[in-house]
């Protein structure tokens, strides 16, 4: 059993070391998550430049897919990444087409799932303006997509101050018109009183939402297909539907 500190950088380091040393891991786990087990005591390798495979040895696309797998909630994601990277040493970029290999297929499927969920939330996230003029949004996702969302909104709303909260993991991203800061819920207390104008704006949006539907074409099943119920608690205009 090998352990890493929970960050992407450290995971890549540990895997690169395993690959260089030609060791086959039985398990790779986050430090904080491993359960003490006398049979397989945890091992944290000492890593230096010489005993790992350089990061730029892996094709960019392969690293990106691995990173998305890392963000997923898949149980054995570290091992999947290990085997995916192992195969990429042999096949380089072509590994992306080797769907007949179980680990490749898994990595591609999971990475797809993560990017699809992030894409959905890029659309469904709803900000509210608080009294202090900070925009606040919460979401509830299966995978750890806060970083992807933060990056998206940093480009889009660079001149606002905003906070995005991942409810499930209780982590937040604060943006101060310049940088993103990632915090745990317990590290900060937010003043969540909404701005006076906010209710007004919400009413305008809700009435637009109702008006834009063509009643001769109503098809709630189709609506729910594209916007499944699990998103509704965070989507303002669906409040009245529940």
């Amino acid at each position, binding site marked *: 059993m090998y352990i890493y500190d929970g960050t992407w950088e450290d995971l890549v380091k540990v895997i690169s070391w395993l690959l260089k040393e030609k060791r086959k891991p039985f398990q790779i786990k986050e430090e904080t998550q491993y359960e003490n087990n006398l049979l397989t005591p945890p091992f944290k390798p000492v890593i230096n430049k010489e005993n790992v495979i350089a990061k730029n040895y892996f094709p960019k696309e392969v690293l990106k897919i691995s990173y998305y797998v890392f963000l997923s909630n898949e149980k054995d994601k570290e091992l999947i990444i290990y085997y995916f990277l192992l195969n990429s040493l042999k096949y380089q970029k072509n590994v992306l087409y080797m769907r007949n290999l179980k680990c490749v297929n898994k990595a591609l499927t999971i990475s797809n799932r993560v990017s699809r969920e992030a894409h959905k939330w890029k659309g*469904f996230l709803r900000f509210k303006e608080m009294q202090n003029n900070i925009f606040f949004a919460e979401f509830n996702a299966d995978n750890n997509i806060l970083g992807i969302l933060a990056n998206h909104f940093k480009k889009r709303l660079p001149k*606002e101050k905003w906070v995005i909260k991942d409810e499930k993991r209780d982590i937040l991203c604060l943006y101060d018109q310049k940088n993103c800061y990632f915090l745990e819920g317990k590290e900060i207390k937010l003043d969540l009183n909404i701005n006076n104008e906010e209710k007004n704006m919400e009413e305008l949006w809700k009435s637009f939402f109702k008006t834009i539907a063509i009643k001769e074409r109503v098809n709630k099943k189709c609506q729910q297909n594209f916007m499944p119920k699990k998103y509704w608690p965070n989507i303002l205009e669906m409040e009245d539907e529940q």
Partner: protein
Amino acid sequence: MTLKEKLEILADSAKYDASCSSSGSARKNKNGIGNGAISGICHSFSSDGRCISLLKILMTNCCIFDCKYCINRKSNQVRRALFTPEEIATLTINFYKRNYIEGLFLSSGIIKSPDYTMEKMIETISLLRNKYHFNGYIHAKAIPGASEYLIQKLGLLVDRLSANIELPTENGLTLLAPDKNTSKVTEIMSFVKKKKSKVFTPAGQSTQMIIGATSETDLDIMSKSSNLYQTYQLKRVFYSAYIAVNKDKNLPSSKMPPLKRENRLYQADWLLRYYNFKVDDLLEKENPNFNILVDPKADWALRHLEEFPKEINKASYYDLVKVPGIGPTSAKKIISSRRFFTIHFSDLRKMGISLKRAKYFILCDGKYFANISCFQKSFITSNLILEEKEEKKERVTQLSLFYEGK
């Protein structure tokens, strides 16, 4: 009149426009607010199952025209409203900051003259782009009959510009929209085609046709679309099932919009754009309408069974996309994978390719999914019709056709 009332009137009158896409523009945020997402982003779905990505409104629903199918025709007694440029700009910005929308879709009834209307629209959009530094997606309707220099000006401000052809034939237009004529619309289209660049309508142009208000066949409609795609390089033709909002002796009285027909037209439209199909492949003079029971590609395949089953490990790209159930994405996956290994049915499943319909038309490494004696028209047809019914139960017909796709 309150802002909310105005919004209700002017969203209500804009809702019949089918276009919703926000894709095709990668506009960067230049020191302001907003940017374009090349793949487009859907922000919500209304109760009719259509995607909402833009604040879709008319600038005004006052109109000097009297088109028979239109709710805003001059002779209708409806409440009229007019947004000021400032109102539209602040609504857009406020909705955008809350991530309700990807941008603005602005159309308008015609007030005073086409030029006057266009000038007002340009004023609104300039305000957004220049005062509010808004770099999100903007789709504007060009007003037929407006001067070229105004279209030029508007095209430089927006991501997509479109002019609606409204009806598939000139006869239909003369009958229902006596104030409009096709050539004014196509003049705009050829101008936009000529000028299109990274700064002029980067997301290109689209148009819309009303389906079922006049007597055209599917063949007429598809021929028109194919012609529009070829001549003006449109990104999309949207089809809008006719909804009876007015009574007129020249209009059909049916209450139900022809949704299934609209769906078939969208399916066929994709076959023209991404699958290398020609209108003649899909429809013929003796049989000018689509089969309601099976989709156009399956219908074609059933009429050309001699071309099937196709060997997945050998068929060319354009042969692969002819297989019902296999689209461009799946075909590309197959081609890039089979260089490295022989593809079996289980591999297709792993690639996430649905075999529901495809399995009747393919061989994997020489094998058919069932006994090859099943490869018969009657067997496949009945199964495909069953599949479609099943699909309708669980998925409903509007499908992902309102997405722009890649």
